[in-house]
């Protein structure tokens, strides 16, 4: 009997932080312009230890102004999507739940696009205008989960196959709406349909939005984390959780809103990147077990690591052209989804 302790939690998270740091350094090195790994690592550690205030001028500009912001974006988006995925899996009691598979990301994308269109009509101040997109994405995500949840209910119980099917159909319907909006109504601010449907980290959002993304991530993940031990029990079903002392309704509402915020924020800055929320929590469960007190932080760090790697592949594999990062995650994620589905059926 070895229950999770705070010490073990910190130790495991520290290991993941070290891996994330190594992955970030490698991602900073890779790209169209070659940078020496040794020199970069040495410079970064000096900066971190405050022995020096800048990187070598040979590559400092590229690394700090182009690659680093994109990597930071990948970290927050990857972490958000993974935590959202782990939360949806517990909330919907479905190991195959993922913001993308269930159409929630597409809902957030539609919400973002509609918000962008409204925004261009309204002539708002730039600080305020920047907040409309994530808000629209949040509403789109929240609305889609509600719709998929009700589609997936049979006789008052969630039926996991109906839920998945409902989600996939919803996703395809929403993708059609995205295509429609893209081809008929193109405004100055709107990026291409592939951006929203496959996801990409190539365009950096405005600074105010990045700030909101960071704050939103910590608040929403923190809120989900406070429910971690209740989520462990919720996996056994609502009734059983209630008899073990879980305030089921309250937990569901907290997780529902927080996971919608995470999905909405991530999609509003990067489009609908798929399968991160499916792959990462599963991988973390295999390594660390299914205790949400460990799983939530591990998914956040694992999601960051995974998306930094995926985005590095996306921008280097066909360099100098940039692949949508969602194409990379789908190439790994879709077969994995099939594998999980087959294993569950057998």
């Amino acid at each position: 009997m070895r229950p999770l302790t705070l010490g073990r939690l910190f130790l495991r998270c520290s290991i993941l932080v070290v891996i994330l740091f190594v992955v970030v350094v490698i991602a900073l090195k890779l790209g169209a312009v070659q940078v020496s790994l040794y020199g970069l690592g040495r410079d970064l550690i000096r900066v971190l230890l405050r022995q020096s205030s800048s990187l070598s001028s040979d590559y400092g500009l590229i690394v700090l102004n182009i690659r680093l912001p994109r990597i930071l974006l990948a970290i927050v988006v990857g972490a958000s999507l993974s935590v959202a995925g782990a939360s949806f899996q517990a909330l919907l009691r479905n190991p195959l739940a993922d913001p993308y598979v269930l159409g929630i990301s597409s809902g957030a994308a539609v919400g973002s696009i509609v918000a962008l269109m409204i925004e261009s009509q309204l002539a708002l101040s730039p600080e305020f205008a920047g907040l409309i997109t994530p808000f629209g994405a949040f509403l789109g995500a929240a609305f889609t989960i509600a719709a998929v949840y009700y589609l997936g209910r049979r006789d008052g119980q969630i039926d996991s196959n109906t839920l998945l099917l409902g989600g996939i159909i919803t996703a395809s319907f929403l993708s059609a709406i995205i295509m429609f909006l893209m081809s008929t109504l193109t405004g100055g601010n709107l990026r291409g349909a592939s951006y929203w449907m496959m996801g990409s980290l190539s365009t950096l959002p405005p600074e105010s939005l990045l700030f909101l993304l960071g704050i939103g991530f910590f608040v929403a993940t923190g809120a989900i984390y406070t429910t971690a031990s209740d989520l462990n029990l919720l996996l056994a079903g609502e009734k059983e959780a209630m008899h073990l002392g879980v305030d089921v309704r309250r937990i569901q509402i907290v997780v529902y809103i927080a996971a919608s915020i995470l999905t909405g924020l991530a999609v509003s800055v990067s489009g609908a990147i798929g399968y991160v929320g499916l792959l990462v929590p599963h991988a973390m469960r295999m390594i660390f077990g299914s205790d949400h007190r460990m799983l939530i932080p591990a998914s956040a760090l694992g999601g960051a690591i995974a998306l930094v790697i995926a985005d590095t592949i996306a921008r280097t594999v066909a360099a100098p052209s940039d692949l949508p990062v969602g194409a990379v995650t789908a190439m790994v994620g879709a077969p994995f989804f099939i594998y999980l589905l087959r294993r569950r059926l057998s």
Partner: protein
Amino acid sequence: MSTPLRTPMPWAANPSADQPRGNPDVRLSVEQASYVYAPNASQAPLFTLEALSFQAKPGEIIAILGPNASGKSTLLKLISGALEPLSGRVFLNGFATHSLPPKIRAQRVALVQQESRLLFPSRVWEFVLQGRHAHGRGLRFESEDDIVVAKNALAQVGALHLTDRWMDRISGGEKQRVILARALAQQPLLLLLDEPTLHLDIGAQVDLLDSLRRLAAENRYTVVVVTHELNLTGEYADQVVLLQKGKCLRVGAPANVFQRDLLEQVFQAPLNVEMTSSGRPRVTLFSNK
């Protein structure tokens, strides 16, 4: 049975308004509790559980006995507080079970269901520690006390050797014992079991009921078991609540409830009731032809 008249109280949803009351020997008191399942208010009800009353003391085993669709599970839900009675009340040590906050309720009432579904694999000890959830706060990393309680619970049901096994790799009987251990880890006053013997072979059934009798005596639990097993009820129950089609036909000791005509009518099967030397009734079933 004395059932003090209670007028409906609008503040009943607030447990603090309920003062502990009544006889300290009585732990569970079901007072004229009834329930109706209806799709909506305008349609005829699908099922009605008519008002019924009984009381139970610490250390007693109560069997709720009846054929399918007699209202056994509904009564259990009323007792557990999962459902609010349409009329009447269910009191546990003087508090209405339905109005207790989930956490407090889980510290006092533990429910063992027929099957516990698992979405992701978990170890036996992880499963049993779930029973400690209601005793902690916030993120609650399990304390040494929690581990001791969980180990004791496993030991009490004779499943300590299963501690590190996976839940999906143990037999049905072993799983039933582990689910019982999780309920014991809640350290409840009231232990409820819904058809606990359903998927067990006869040896495991007797094992389970022997341990229930021992636990009720040692830990002073009040145990309520829903079942349709006549002979196990006759052998182990201190009180029987006999239900048929939503009506409570009789409450009392097995020797008083187990009467041939009554049981034949309730279970729709020819049978014979004998008294054993220990004063317990034994039922023999015959073929209809």
